[in-house]
């Protein structure tokens, strides 16, 4: 039995004891006896140490029970489901040597916006540019040609219409989609289009088009009216964005049968009690909800700080408890960061290689420049090429290609490494100046979310049994 403390992760939450076998990805819900025995061994303790622990914590448990618990633990060890080694390290080298294909693009349809959200990393849509710019249909079509030409044998190709606010250039969105549908069959590809919008310009025409063509739509709203309107104001003050977008987003979500969309909010230091915003959105009837921590510079007043973590952990746990309470009722809802696919989830290759930014996922500016992802757009240190010439700055691509859980020191021993795949390169860069650096607050939040997601699944399993 290994006892280095990096094979097992344990936690108690929502009334369940969870033991995660990190390398096999298997998750066990145990009774307190097994939980405590595993904990002693994981910390390097011996059988004698277990006996000492039992005298204190389980003094009324008969030895026959202890023997039975050990037998079950041994069964899992024999089945490579407990205290398993990491067999994947060598595979990463294979991965690095693979030919790079591009399979997803974020099209910056408009570097302009009708809102001026206070936390916008795109600087109100301008992305460090001096003036507003709209993507032309020609640039958009060339981007699709570039994607098809560089996608190798990948069939499913993803294209997100992003901004700024893409509906400021909706006719171009339509034209690019039409072009995509024309070229996909002859190239044996399938485009999955998605749209990310602040909702202000959503109308029946947009809804009809999106429901026909968009695999997913992401609709921005932060939650409670006072929270939303403080952080997501119009450029001219005095009009509530919440009042304008809420009915539109409700209509949009209903028209998609409450599926294949997310209402997507951002929480900041201004609303550390963000679980109330999630619940607010759920109470408005939204079933697919994502509310996520802000990405900000440490110096920004609304940036989340390390000292906020205990409060944020409490909020995530409160939210998990509320979801368990609502499960199976007409008030149940999905929370993106608590969704976890435990049976048909991604293979280990996907889990090792991360989000794909700079390699299989690229962002395209209105003028056709290529960047590793939307978060790097405008930072010319990361300019990779353009849709006419393709990726010419291969040095940037190679840096991102080496971005994986084994390349990041803190990931190597983190229990969450096969769930977050090393996290967001842009976050790491913003906080440490290095795409392989750390963003500790973000990591702590990620770990808490994974624990909550598993605790919810564990409670569901127990309910079914």
């Amino acid at each position, binding site marked *: 039995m290994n006892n280095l403390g990096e094979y097992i992760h344990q936690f108690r939450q929502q009334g369940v004891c969870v033991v995660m076998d990190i*390398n*096999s*990805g*298997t*998750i*066990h819900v*145990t009774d307190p006896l097994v939980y405590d025995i595993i904990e002693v061994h994981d910390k390097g303790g011996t059988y004698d140490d277990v006996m000492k622990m039992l005298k204190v914590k389980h003094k009324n448990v008969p030895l026959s029970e202890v023997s*039975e*618990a050990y037998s*079950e633990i041994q069964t899992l060890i024999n089945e*490579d*489901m407990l205290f*398993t080694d990491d067999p*994947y390290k060598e*595979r990463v080298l294979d991965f690095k040597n693979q030919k790079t*294909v591009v*399979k997803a693009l*974020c099209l910056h349809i408009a570097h302009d916006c009708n809102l001026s959200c206070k936390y916008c990393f795109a600087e109100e849509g301008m992305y460090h540019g001096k003036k507003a710019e709209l993507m032309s249909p020609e640039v958009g079509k060339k981007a699709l040609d570039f994607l098809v030409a560089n996608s190798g044998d*990948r*069939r*499913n190709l*993803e294209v997100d219409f992003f901004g700024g606010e893409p509906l400021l250039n909706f006719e171009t969105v339509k034209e690019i989609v039409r072009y995509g549908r024309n070229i996909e069959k002859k190239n044996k590809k399938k485009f*999955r289009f998605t749209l990310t919008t602040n909702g202000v310009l959503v109308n029946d025409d947009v809804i009809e088009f999106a429901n026909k063509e968009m695999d*997913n739509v992401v609709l921005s709203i932060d939650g409670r009216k006072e929270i939303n309107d403080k952080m997501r104001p119009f450029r001219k003050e005095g009009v509530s964005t919440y009042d304008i977008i809420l009915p539109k987003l409700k209509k949009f979500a209903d028209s998609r049968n409450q599926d294949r969309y*997310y209402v*997507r909010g951002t929480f900041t230091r201004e609303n550390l009690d963000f679980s109330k915003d999630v619940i607010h959105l759920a109470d408005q009837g939204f079933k697919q909800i*994502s509310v*996520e921590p802000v*990405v900000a510079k440490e110096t920004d007043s609304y940036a989340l700080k390390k000292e906020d973590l205990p409060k944020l952990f409490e909020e995530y746990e409160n939210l998990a408890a509320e979801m368990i309470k609502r499960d199976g009722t007409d008030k149940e809802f999905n929370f*993106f*960061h608590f*969704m*976890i*696919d*435990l*049976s048909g*989830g*991604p*293979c*280990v*290759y*996907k*889990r090792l290689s991360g*989000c794909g930014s700079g390699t*299989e*996922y690229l962002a395209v500016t209105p003028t056709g420049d290529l960047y590793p*992802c939307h978060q790097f757009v405008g930072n010319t240190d990361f300019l990779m090429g353009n849709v006419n010439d393709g990726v010419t700055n291969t040095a940037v691509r190679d840096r991102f290609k080496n971005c994986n859980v084994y390349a990041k020191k803190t990931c190597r021993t983190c229990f969450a490494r*096969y*769930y*977050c*795949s090393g996290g*967001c390169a*842009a976050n790491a860069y913003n906080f440490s100046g290095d795409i392989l650096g750390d963003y500790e607050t*973000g990591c702590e939040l*990620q770990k808490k979310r*994974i624990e909550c*997601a*598993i605790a919810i699944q*564990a409670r569901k*399993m127990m309910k079914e049994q």
Partner: protein
Amino acid sequence: MKHIKTLNGTKLQDTVKKGGCGECQTSCQSACKTSCTVGNQHCENKR
């Protein structure tokens, strides 16, 4: 088992053999745009 209930039977080791087709969704395209999570992605490998 009496003391242990396993939540998921799929072992990551088993995905080494047939995984890596790359057809699954790019995580950042799904909703987040800031916070990489792959644990919630679905496998699209039909092999």
